[in-house]
């Protein structure tokens, strides 16, 4: 199913992304202890929590950069074929092609940008459309130029990543994710590696994407920003979602004592 299939009538009930009972441990240390989360279309979900609460691991499990030990996952209604971990034997991907296809529909933006240093910005963005979506070179370049213009980097497209500032690199990273026309965008602390004066330009781009109605999951420490752009928010603590709800409500009337204290100290 492609994102455009979702716009057909009768498909409204299909969540863009859903996980149930997601568990993940590193060695004997449990990081996720049964996370259930649904992202409907056009939702922007802010995932909050202190360091070590498992929010980044959750995001990395969603596109299988980390293999969950247990749990079920659906992307656009399609169940991912995964083997659960049993008795010390780790979880496994059962259908690599399916996972590759699904990953292509989940755009990931990394904390440390991870632009490929041997490729220009334009090539970084065009690489996925060319080799994964099998677009013609001309078509892929067109797509890449379009999204680079959207994030304000049209004039930098022939530069190599190390010639750009952190904020520019992260905007290029966002363009690289967008060029795959993903159904869901995953942001893993997109501004945490940036100098404070550079976060603004990146947040501006993310805000404009939220306004376009894109489905996004946003792990961030920028609480004010999360409150502003997200429609829903989830507060994670100790590998579980402690509280979840409409963004306004979560920030204004936190139900749990823990979230109240978290907001008081961070926000």
């Amino acid at each position, binding site marked *: 199913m492609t994102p455009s299939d979702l716009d057909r009538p009768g498909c409204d009930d299909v969540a863009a992304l859903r996980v149930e009972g997601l568990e993940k441990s590193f060695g004997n240390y449990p990081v996720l202890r049964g996370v259930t989360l649904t992202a409907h279309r056009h939702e922007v979900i802010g995932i909050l929590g202190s360091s070590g609460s498992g929010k980044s691991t959750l995001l990395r499990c969603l*596109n299988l*950069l980390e293999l969950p030990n247990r749990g079920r996952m659906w992307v656009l209604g399609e169940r991912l074929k995964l083997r659960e971990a049993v008795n010390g034997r780790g979880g496994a991907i059962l259908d*690599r092609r399916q996972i*590759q*296809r*699904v*990953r*292509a*529909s*989940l*755009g*990931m933006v*990394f904390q*440390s940008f*991870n*632009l*490929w*240093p*041997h490729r*220009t910005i334009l090539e970084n963005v065009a*690489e*996925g459309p060319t*080799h*994964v979506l099998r677009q013609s070179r001309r078509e892929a370049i067109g797509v890449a130029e379009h999204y680079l213009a959207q994030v304000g980097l049209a004039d930098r497209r*022939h*530069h*190599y990543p*190390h*010639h750009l500032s952190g904020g520019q690199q992260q905007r290029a990273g966002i363009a*690289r*994710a967008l060029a*795959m026309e993903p159904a869901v965008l995953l942001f893993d602390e997109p501004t945490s590696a940036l100098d404070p004066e550079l976060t603004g330009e990146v947040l501006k781009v993310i805000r404009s994407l939220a306004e376009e109605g894109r489905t996004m999951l946003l792990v961030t420490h920028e609480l004010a920003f999360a409150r502003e752009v997200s429609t829903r928010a989830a507060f994670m603590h100790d590998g579980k979602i402690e509280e979840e709800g409409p963004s306004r409500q979560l920030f204004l009337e936190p139900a749990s004592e823990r979230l109240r204290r978290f907001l008081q100290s961070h926000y």
Partner: protein
Amino acid sequence: MQIDIFLQSIVTLANAAFLTIALTVPSLVIGFVISVPLAFMRASDSRYLSSAILAYTYVVRGTPLLVQLFLIYYGLGQIDVIRHSPLWVLLRDPFWCALLAFSLNSAAYTTELFRGAIQAVPRGLVEAAEAVGMSRLQQARLITFPIAFRAALPSYTNEVIGLLKASSLASTVTLLEITGVARRLVSETFAPYEIFLAAGVIYLALTYLVTSVFRLLERHLAGAEPKVARETAMLSLRRISP
């Protein structure tokens, strides 16, 4: 020193350099082609795969190339199966024996060189390739290897120079490459000083050629500098001309 003998040897040995090149370049190419998949296997998470490749590189790197060459040239002929196989047409010829020994030797060193470079590619760059949905082969071909190769290039230049000089061992199995011809000239003229000096000069010239080519390649692959520099140059040109 007799200058005329020196100059004459330079000319004679320069001709012999063709055989040195004919031994070195194909060995490097074959070694490279073998080493890339081996390096990925060696760097893989599978311990069995990795140690199988390690066994090969360990043995080859742990024994002298001269011994390997003798084993192939003198040793293989002792085995009846090989003597009676169609391969014997090649393996009784010292050129092919030397080529085989050099290729296997170069492959082992290059494998370990690339293995280190592959493992040094930052994990996040590979994750970014995974995240856009690339297959493992695409990740290796488009991201991991190009980055690893650029990092390994200075050390790979060393390997190329090393093999170029190691090809002098081919003279021990009767091949008349630079060193082989030099030895023959010495036995005819009894002027070892002039002749080996000439041989040294030829090797030095070849090494100079190799390092120049690889320096150009390095600069080309670094890419960033020339491309941006060109653009800035064009910008400043535009600024000058109204």
